[in-house]
């Protein structure tokens, strides 16, 4: 077996263990800076990945009896998660000041959650799907409740724990039913037999249970109930990682289960996916309107974005799948930029209310500009990444509409959702520049690595918005391994 296939995972695991070990020997004052070392390590791994790992288009390399697949799709999501974790680590160094103890554990747990995401992007078997999903989820229980002294953080952890464990129960029972009817756990083997099982109620019930577990990860209705509370209560870097990494892991697993393991079944489920996507978009956008807490607002907006991403899956086409990947790429820069700003602002004002952004335009033009651009991109206005992503998703949905009129309705709901979202995203921008009362106008001076990360986020948003060609070509190439 070729160990190079698992090199991302092995390197990240080694880095996580090194961070834990280094904590033993480093003096207390230096531990906070371990985050920079870990981020530098991830940058090295990312560089290694681009230089040394190559997969020919359409080619799939397997390890562990086809349990683990390395293909373009896996590689895309591995690099995506590595980049997300890198920025989250930089953010956590800023955040670490407010943490009483265990800063290095926080970094190490972030790396272990990343390990789960790397494994999830390659899962080609229900056993690996389950283990990687749980590695992510259990690590996030701890990360969400890391601020033990704050009641909100503990409460977020407990809520995530109960709902997460519930979804685990559903997933495992679903896997048991699918396994019982087919005798297979491997996606490739399942694909060979699933076409004959499309009418079997028990099989479909098992698949619905598995999708319920994945729906929890991406925060889609009706499994979205945890998202606002956990987003609000968890420490900011955790929330950012949850919103970007954990959601992307849910989507790659969803793509693999739907379009590798049971393609025939998912093609029957067009209308179910349409309904789920439409309700998720409406729920997220409508509930976000009255929110005053910024993190909670982003929690609801993340539900809405799960709905937009489901558009591409509901389209049941290559274009749709490739649009999902593109949208996630834009979402990474947008959301991490926004959360980095929140992390810096909230550290200073100890409040998460939208009003606490008052005067940010004068306190730090860079932070204000990043947050403004992120909100514009989340709302989906040109010329930023969010616009191109939404455009591709809608295009893929409308292309399917002549065959199934329901897609017109879905496209209409998505556009209505965008219009609703303009209201609350612009409420944030208004708070930054046009608040009457600004109690605190002391300047905020971001550290050099954070400034670099913010510039990278701005560049990413503009690049993906103005020059979509490169990434579109890549994502179209990558989804060829799916059906």
């Amino acid at each position, binding site marked *: 077996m070729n160990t190079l296939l698992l090199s991302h995972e092995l390197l990240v695991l080694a880095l996580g263990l090194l961070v834990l070990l280094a904590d033993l020997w480093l003096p207390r004052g230096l531990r906070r800076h371990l985050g920079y070392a870990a981020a530098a390590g991830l940058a090295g791994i990312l560089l290694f990945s681009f230089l040394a790992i190559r997969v020919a288009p359409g080619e799939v390399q397997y390890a562990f009896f086809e349990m683990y697949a390395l293909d373009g799709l896996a590689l895309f999501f591995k690099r995506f998660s590595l980049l997300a974790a890198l920025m989250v680590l930089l953010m956590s160094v800023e955040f670490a000041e407010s943490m009483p103890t265990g800063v290095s554990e926080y970094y190490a747990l972030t790396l272990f959650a990343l390990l789960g995401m790397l494994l999830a992007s390659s899962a080609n078997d*229900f056993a690996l799907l389950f283990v990687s999903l749980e590695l992510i989820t*259990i690590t996030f229980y701890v990360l969400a409740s890391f601020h033990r002294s704050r*009641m909100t953080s503990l409460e977020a952890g407990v809520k995530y724990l109960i709902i997460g464990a519930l979804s685990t129960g559903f997933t495992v029972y679903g896997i048991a039913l699918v396994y*019982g009817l087919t005798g297979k756990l491997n996606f490739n083997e399942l694909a060979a037999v699933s076409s004959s099982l499309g009418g079997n109620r028990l099989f479909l019930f098992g698949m619905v249970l598995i999708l319920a577990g994945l729906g929890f990860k991406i925060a889609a209705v009706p499994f979205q109930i945890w998202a606002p509370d956990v987003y609000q209560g968890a420490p900011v870097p955790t929330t950012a990682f949850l919103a970007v990494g954990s959601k992307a892991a849910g989507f790659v697993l969803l793509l693999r289960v739907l379009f590798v393991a049971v393609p025939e079944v998912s093609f029957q489920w067009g209308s179910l996916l349409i309904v789920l996507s439409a309700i998720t978009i409406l729920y997220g956008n409508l509930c976000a309107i009255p929110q005053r807490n910024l993190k909670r607002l982003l929690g609801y907006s993340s539900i809405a974005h799960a709905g937009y991403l489901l558009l591409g899956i509901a389209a049941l086409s290559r274009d749709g799948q490739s649009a999902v990947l593109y949208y996630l790429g834009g979402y990474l820069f947008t959301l991490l930029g926004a959360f980095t700003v929140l992390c810096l602002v909230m550290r200073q004002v100890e409040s998460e209310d939208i009003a606490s952004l008052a005067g940010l335009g004068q306190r730090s033009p860079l932070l204000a500009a990043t947050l403004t651009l992120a909100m514009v991109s989340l709302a989906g206005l040109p010329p930023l990444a969010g616009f191109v992503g939404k455009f591709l998703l809608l295009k893929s949905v409308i292309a399917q509409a002549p065959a199934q009129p329901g897609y017109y309705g879905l496209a209409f709901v998505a556009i209505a959702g965008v219009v609703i979202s303009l209201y609350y995203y612009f409420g944030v921008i208004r708070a930054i520049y046009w608040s009457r009362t600004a109690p605190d106008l002391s300047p905020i001076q971001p550290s050099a690595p954070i400034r670099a990360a913010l510039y990278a986020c701005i560049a990413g948003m503009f690049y993906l918005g103005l020059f979509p060609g490169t990434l579109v070509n890549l994502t179209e190439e990558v989804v060829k391994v799916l059906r």
Partner: protein
Amino acid sequence: MSVGLQHYLVVSAVLFSLGLLGVILRRNLLVIYMGLEMMLNAANLALVAFSRFTNNLDGQVFVFFVITVAAAEVAVGLALIVALYRRRQTVHAEDLTCMKL
């Protein structure tokens, strides 16, 4: 009467439903957690029964993974619930109300 696959599956479905009912109806976090564990074990029973009656060992191996992961989940979960109890002196779901709207 010989015990067949159906019997195991019925027991497993009953256990799963009882666990789910416990999660939905009970208000004590520890009891909710017990219900969650019961759902996992219901799935394990189904997996082992399927595996035994189809002579395919994959299911039994998968059960080992589920047990291991469930143990990790319990370790983290109970620690969290204890931390919550220390802070609030309560483990009731109704008392988790510091985030609203």
